[in-house]
């Protein structure tokens, strides 16, 4: 069955990324679904990261590449005794995704908020990257 909310697994494991916080190398990582809107002066990115905790999200910017790594605690129901997985349709793991923004951005003013498993990033473009409207005067 095809699920609209199916996760895309990435090739890399969590420990191949820049930061490895002692998690086992076998942990899976996923490429979260993203929406991106250009508001002129800023770029807004929404990422579906269900299960991620707000204090374990790393956002880094290098040149015009924005990278998000959302760590997810493995908080699955206990499998013990007669309790076992009766269905296992999705796996739990970290979310990692990079975007090339195509603009210089003001990395000091990036605003990140997490709400109900959705991470919103408001990325202001650097002053030099915002196109200015030039009025043409007629003589």
């Amino acid at each position, binding site marked *: 069955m*095809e699920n*609209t*909310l199916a996760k895309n697994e990435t090739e890399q494991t969590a420990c191949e990324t820049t930061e490895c916080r002692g998690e086992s190398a076998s942990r899976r990582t996923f490429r979260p679904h993203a929406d991106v*809107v*250009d508001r002129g002066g800023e770029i807004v990115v929404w990422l*579906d990261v269900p299960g991620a905790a707000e204090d374990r999200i790393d956002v880094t910017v290098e040149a015009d590449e924005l990278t998000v790594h959302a760590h997810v605690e493995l908080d699955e129901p206990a499998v013990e005794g007669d309790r076992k997985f*009766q269905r*296992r349709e999705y796996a739990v793991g970290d979310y990692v995704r990079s975007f090339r923004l195509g603009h210089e951005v003001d990395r000091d003013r990036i605003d990140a908020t997490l709400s109900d*498993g959705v991470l919103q990033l408001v990325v202001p473009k650097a002053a030099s990257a915002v196109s200015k409207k030039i009025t043409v005067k007629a003589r």
Partner: protein
Amino acid sequence: MNALRTFNPWQELNDVAEQVNRAFGRTPFQLPAGPAVNVVGGEHSAVLTAELPGLDVEKLDVSVERDVVTIRGERESTTPGEGESWVRRERPVGAFERVVRLPFEVDGNTAEAVYERGVLTLTLHRPEEQKPRRVSVRRV
């Protein structure tokens, strides 16, 4: 028309549904497939989890009937305002429905649903009166 064609009422219904859908320009009759679910449980209880980021809890509906759990909801789509434009649009939106059958009947009175960090967790129990009872055998 093949005279030997077996009459299949379900096929007839499907054909009608398909015609209706075509008339209204919809893709084949069904809501988008619902979320993937994990179920961990035993004979008497189970914990069902589903990843449903960005939902309005008011629009999330969970119902239990006998051994069937139904999760319905809707994620609203947003429209960029004036001077804004989509650069990328991947997050699924719209209404969904997911039906999951469990290996036991669920007690609706003790069922619990919690939505946290975009993950829905249902704790489901088998009704007390349906749990098997041990009968001690008296020797006479």
